[in-house]
């Protein structure tokens, strides 16, 4: 379980301090997918930076299974909003970076080959990030996070740069992978539809500084033909209402 209690994060701007998160508290159960939805600038990326150990300057307490956050001992798969690819590594090297750091070598196994193939980037292995489209870069970032078989998956709007068809394929792929090993996932999104499709729990955040408005159990999760059902429609309306009131 991830326990976040009274988490506050301040950025030091040039003149004033910017409060990005204000007494943010939530418990995230092991092996569940949480989709976080909230207005732009409410501190979603900031939250992921804290959870992934990038940002250490915060007040309040954050723990993963009772332990303080420590990327050296925990296996955290992170997909950054700006992808976080290293420009001097080609697609293959970028994909295997997590595996390399965690396991000490960047040899691909069947699993990473499966990931590369399903993300349709296995024909781009020798290209450098600057030679890729935004959506391709995003898929490399996704591949990197999946390939290292994380215990905790943090995804910051991972499908935002993809076209509608590819996005739905990726959502499907993500759910398939998730069903195999139910890794605890924090999934940030702007889209109500995506929050409903992928989240077992949906967390709605207030405008800046971000606080939790509501945590909803999502009855729509894992329903077939979800987008044509009444549950989908009513949940969608309900979510939109909370988001716009916040």
């Amino acid at each position, binding site marked *: 379980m991830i326990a976040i209690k009274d988490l506050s994060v301040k950025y030091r701007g040039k003149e004033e301090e910017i409060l990005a998160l204000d007494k943010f508290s939530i418990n995230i159960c092991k092996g569940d997918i949480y989709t976080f939805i909230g207005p732009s600038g409410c501190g979603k990326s900031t939250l992921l*930076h804290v959870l*992934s*150990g*990038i940002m250490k300057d915060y007040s309040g307490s954050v723990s993963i299974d009772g332990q303080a956050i*420590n*990327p*050296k*001992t*925990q296996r*955290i798969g*992170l997909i*950054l909003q*700006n992808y*976080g*690819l*290293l*420009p*001097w*590594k*080609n697609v293959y090297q970028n994909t295997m*970076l*997590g595996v390399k*750091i*965690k396991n000490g070598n960047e040899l691909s196994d069947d699993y990473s080959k499966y990931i590369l193939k399903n993300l349709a980037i296995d024909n781009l292995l020798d290209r*450098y*990030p*600057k030679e890729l489209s935004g959506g391709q870069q995003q898929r490399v970032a996704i591949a*990197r996070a999946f390939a*290292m078989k994380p215990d905790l998956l*943090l995804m910051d709007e991972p499908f935002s740069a993809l076209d509608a068809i590819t996005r739905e394929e990726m959502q499907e792929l993500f759910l398939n992978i998730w069903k195999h090993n139910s890794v605890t996932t924090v999934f940030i999104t702007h889209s109500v539809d995506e929050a409903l499709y992928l989240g077992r729990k949906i967390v709605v955040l207030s405008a800046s500084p971000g606080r939790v408005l509501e945590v909803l159990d999502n009855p729509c999760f894992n329903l077939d033909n979800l987008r044509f059902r009444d549950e989908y429609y009513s949940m969608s309306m309900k979510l939109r209402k909370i988001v716009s009131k916040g």
Partner: protein
Amino acid sequence: MIKLLSKEKWQGTLYSFVIVIIFWQAAAMIVNLPIVPSPGFVFLNIMEIFSSKIQIHVLYSLLRIMEGIAISILIGVPLGFLMGYFNKVDRLLSPLIYFTYPVPKIALLPVVMLLFGLGEASKLIMIILIIVFQIIITSRDAVKAIPDETFRSLKSLGATKVQMFTEIIFPASLSEVLTATRLALGTAVSILFFTETFGTEYGMGYFIMDSWMRVNYLDMYAGIVVLSFMGFCIFTLIDIAENYFCSWR
């Protein structure tokens, strides 16, 4: 495949070479004195005496320059990286570097000679003194210019400090370091020439000055051409290395 030297670069080189030769030939014809022999004679002379007279001097000069560059990189790059990555190291060393950087190092030649004698050590130290500061400062600035975001993926993976250096800092700043080396090379060759005019009987500097003393202008020009060509070769070599290692740019 990575193209090491593009067609345009080769054509540019050839073009400049032709231009230089034309001007040289024109100057030789106008002046019409032994002090400016025509390029044709000089190149013929090079072919004649290269293996018997020049070769050994080229080897000595080449060795000195290569050693100088290698040692400067071995000292300068790690130091610059540490200064760029750890603010404490930077605060400690920056004032020293800033204070000594603008001192014309050639002015230190007498001191270096007094301390290290007239031999190889002085020559090497002079070259290093000239190049190393540029490499330190460039490496430091290159590391400082890496945006914080670049480190995020590795931080979230729990990478060690060593991995930060090998995966990010080194590849990110390699290109700048090579460029700085290339630029420092011009000065280094001049210094080399200067230091080879005393305390040795080997090196292109010695060969050129010696030919001059013996009023053998053809040999002297041969030396100048060979020394220039040597500089050009090292310059191109670094350029090729940069294109090869930094093809991701």
